[in-house]
């Protein structure tokens, strides 16, 4: 299912909270709402109390303009807000202040693109528009939604600034959708306006069509970990229908992350009429050339540039550099390591192979693990100082990731230092030779059997024997036997 398939067309509508903002989009409430007592980070404005009025957070506009520039968008000279009217208990005013591209509305920016790197190729994903809007509150249930005896509403999230990014249906596989989301996240994180590791900070809706067929929307995808699953399921479902000769209905479906299926939410006929109209409580915002240039001058280095720098300054291959900048945390981690120990290629290799594989297999974020640049560098130094072998390093890395214990301590506690003492090794080799007489005999004529003997020695030392010294000593011993016979 991960193969790109020209007949599959996927477009995304991504909502990212501008998590670096100090306050909400239209009031001065703190945007740091996570883990707070329900309904404690609220005020008359974000509760939608009668008589309250929204005031636009200027910093949010600045951040959104940054994102627009990073997405290579055309920025509107003048932008304004619209009301999207619908009833739902998480929406205190029963309308959402957002932007709109029809009915005379102008979104913040349009016609952009991002490149994604996938299987060695660069692919352009077009972004049709981006805009600012307010996040609704959160509904809280006791257990699964359909079994909960009640619904509680927490408005702490109400009014948090969201950046909505809408792409063209340019992705051809669930994997590409995931890679795009990763790229989007990395760009926003490099801009310093977003922290994707926060729960619920990135959510997305996807639309999928197969072989030019009917477009189906999938809502409620909560992270890019989920996007691949949800889309794969949906493609499988639609393919199954088509194979049985059943037409795919145009509808909106809901991704149920627990059951890992999509369920029908509403069909085309039931589409809501949001009665968009200009928000009369907010005045249009002029985005002058001068202002945009000012924002542009404040932009930090973006992933694509950083990748080029990783290639030229550190001599990394394109693929490796690409993987490292796919997440700001990863790229920062790498550069932090290089600062501590100027061996970029070794560091990159360890990150690319063992570190990332472990994180991926265990579904962990780098930030969720306990490893730090200091610890990874310490581990690499232990190898370079001949204290441990690479094999041992591979064994202790998961321990560092999980416990955060200093590598040297793990090595000491578990007696994992490389055995370089000739006396010790000599005694061990004697034992191996006496336990494997046939192999010793073979080894005198067959190189393969030599490796077997070395392998036995490594096994006995749990990989701690210095590999080159061990090989040397085994061969020496074989030579002496040869001489004797």
């Amino acid at each position, binding site marked *: 299912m991960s193969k790109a398939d020209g007949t599959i067309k996927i477009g995304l509508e991504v909502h990212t909270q501008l998590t670096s903002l100090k306050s909400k989009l239209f009031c001065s409430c703190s945007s740091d709402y996570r883990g707070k007592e329900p309904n404690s980070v609220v005020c008359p404005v974000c509760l939608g109390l009668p*008589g*309250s*009025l*929204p005031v636009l957070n200027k910093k949010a506009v600045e951040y959104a303009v940054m994102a627009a520039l990073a997405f290579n968008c055309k920025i509107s000279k003048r932008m304004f807000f619209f009301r999207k009217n619908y009833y739902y208990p998480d929406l205190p005013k029963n309308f959402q202040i957002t932007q709109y591209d029809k*009915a005379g509305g102008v979104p913040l920016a349009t016609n952009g693109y991002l490149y994604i790197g996938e299987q060695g190729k660069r692919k352009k994903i077009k972004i049709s528009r981006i805009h600012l809007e307010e996040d609704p509150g959160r509904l809280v249930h006791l257990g699964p939604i359909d079994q909960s005896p009640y619904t509680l509403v927490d408005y702490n999230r109400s009014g948090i600034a969201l950046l909505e990014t809408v792409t063209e249906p340019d992705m051809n596989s669930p994997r590409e959708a995931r890679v795009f989301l990763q790229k989007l996240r990395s760009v926003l994180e490099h801009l310093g306006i977003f922290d994707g590791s926060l729960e619920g900070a990135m959510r997305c809706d996807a639309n999928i069509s197969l072989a030019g067929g009917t477009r189906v929307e999938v809502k409620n995808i909560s992270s890019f970990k989920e996007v691949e699953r949800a889309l794969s399921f949906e493609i499988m479902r639609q393919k199954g229908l088509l194979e049985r000769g059943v037409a795919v209905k145009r509808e909106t479906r809901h991704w149920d992350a627990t059951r890992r299926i999509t369920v029908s939410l509403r069909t085309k006929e039931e589409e809501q009429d949001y009665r968009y*109209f200009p928000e009369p409580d907010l005045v249009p915002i002029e985005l002058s050339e001068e202002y945009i240039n000012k924002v542009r001058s404040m932009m930090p280095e973006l992933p694509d540039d950083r990748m080029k720098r990783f290639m030229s300054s550190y001599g990394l291959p394109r693929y490796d550099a690409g993987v490292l900048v796919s997440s700001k945390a990863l790229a920062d981690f790498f550069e932090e390591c290089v600062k501590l120990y100027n061996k970029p290629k070794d560091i990159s290799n360890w990150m690319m192979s063992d570190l990332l594989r472990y994180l991926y297999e265990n579904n962990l974020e780098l930030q969720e693990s306990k490893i730090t640049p200091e610890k990874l560098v310490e581990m690499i130094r232990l190898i370079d100082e001949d204290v441990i072998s690479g094999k041992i390093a591979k064994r202790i890395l998961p321990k560092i990731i999980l416990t955060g214990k200093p590598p040297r301590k793990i090595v000491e506690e578990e007696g994992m230092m490389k055995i370089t003492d000739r006396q010790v090794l000599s005694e061990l080799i004697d034992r191996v030779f006496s336990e494997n007489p046939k192999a010793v005999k073979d080894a005198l004529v067959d190189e393969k059997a030599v490796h077997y003997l070395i392998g036995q020695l490594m096994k006995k030392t749990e990989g701690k024997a210095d590999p080159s010294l061990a090989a040397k000593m085994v061969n020496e011993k074989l030579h002496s036997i040869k001489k004797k016979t």
Partner: protein
Amino acid sequence: MPKPYEISAEEAAVKIRTQELTAEEYVASVFNRITQIEKRINAFITLTKQTALQTARQIDEKIRKGEKLGCLAGIPIAVKDNICTRGVRTTCSSRMLKDFVPPYDATVIEKLINQDAVIIGKTNMDEFAMGTTTETSYFGATHNPWNLKKVPGGSSGGSAAAVTAEETPLALGSDTGGSVRCPASYCSTVGLKPTYGLVSRYGLISYANSLEQIGPLARNVYDCALLLSVISGHDARDSTSVNMPPSDYTAFLKNDVKGLKIGVPQEFLGEGVEDAVRKAVWDAVNLLETLGAEYEEVTVPTMRHALPAYYIVAMSEASSNLARYDGLRYGFRVKKDDGDWSTIYAEDRRAGFGTEVRRRIILGTYALSAGYYDEYYLKALRVRTLIRRDFEKALKKCDVLVGPTMPILPFNLGEKIDDPLALYMCDVLTVPANLTGYPAASIPCGFKNGLPIGLQIIGKPFDEGTILRVAYTFERNTDFHKRRPIL
């Protein structure tokens, strides 16, 4: 000697400052008056007697200690019940909000408190300010103090009735389509709708955001100017409020209109305007001319589209503004029982809103619906632009435009309440100021059969000063404002 409640804010402010009258005496006198007549008028929904008297005593204490005083020290003021007052229920005359107690003060309330005004209560109004007669109130209609069988106008009918009946020297109203000027006219008080953006709307419960302003009501032009000076000014909490330096509007009050050009738009005196009204307005124009103003007939041809454009914009915005009243976080709830949220919302809204409010929500929802948006809402916005251009043109030639505030005299309670179109027609002369955002006042200019007639004065944006100067000159040279209803 007049009783304290009869005197104006201007005079009382001086007497209180010089300790000729204590704030407590003044406020107590006003509450005595209310006790005597309020049953017949029903101007108030909530009275805050205890806190008002306490505030008055604190102000007297300040005076005795020689502390710095605000310009409204000890002056009672009544506040329309759609302006949020912290800790005092703010109902919008609706069953929906009958128990709603705001946790915050509107910006205008903060300004009043900063100037040591004494808030005496919340006044009756049409439900959610939707009406021209104050009859759609959940708390019963307000009666016109000039004739208790007549409507006081609306929607700020309680505020205007309280002022004219001497239950308060000052009141705040709000004007979305004439809601300050209409009751000012019908109750023979001075009322002003400021330029859109002059007064903060923060804390004013929205009916139609792009049209409305909070405005002062008083028994004379000076008091009105004084109150406007207090409530106007930029507010960072209202994005539509205009950043302008504060102004003392009493400084504009000169008994002199020499050289001012007064325009009389012919559309204001056309069909549908009662003869008595037309005559009173021409008399007023003639008087102003005698006093040195020049007058000129002008025309604002697009005005015939003003009423439909107004109602489409107002109802559309209202349908969205009032969506938040679902009974979930606050407000009226039919029953606390469980059930799915959409059914509960529907029940609460059906029972919590009155007929006129529901009518406007439904019409507004329709006007914004897919397929109708261009035909109604967008077209109304275009009409709005055309009307603004017409008024801009007329006001290029003239300093102010004058005409009637209301085309007809106050009518009987119940007479038009079942005929919404007839009621909407009453707003025909007031809505242009809301569509254009221009300032406009209504001042007493005559009586017919004991019923008041109001003169409307429309000015250039942010030129409230000239409106008040014309109003003041007219007032100095007439006696209409001195007449009081017999109660």
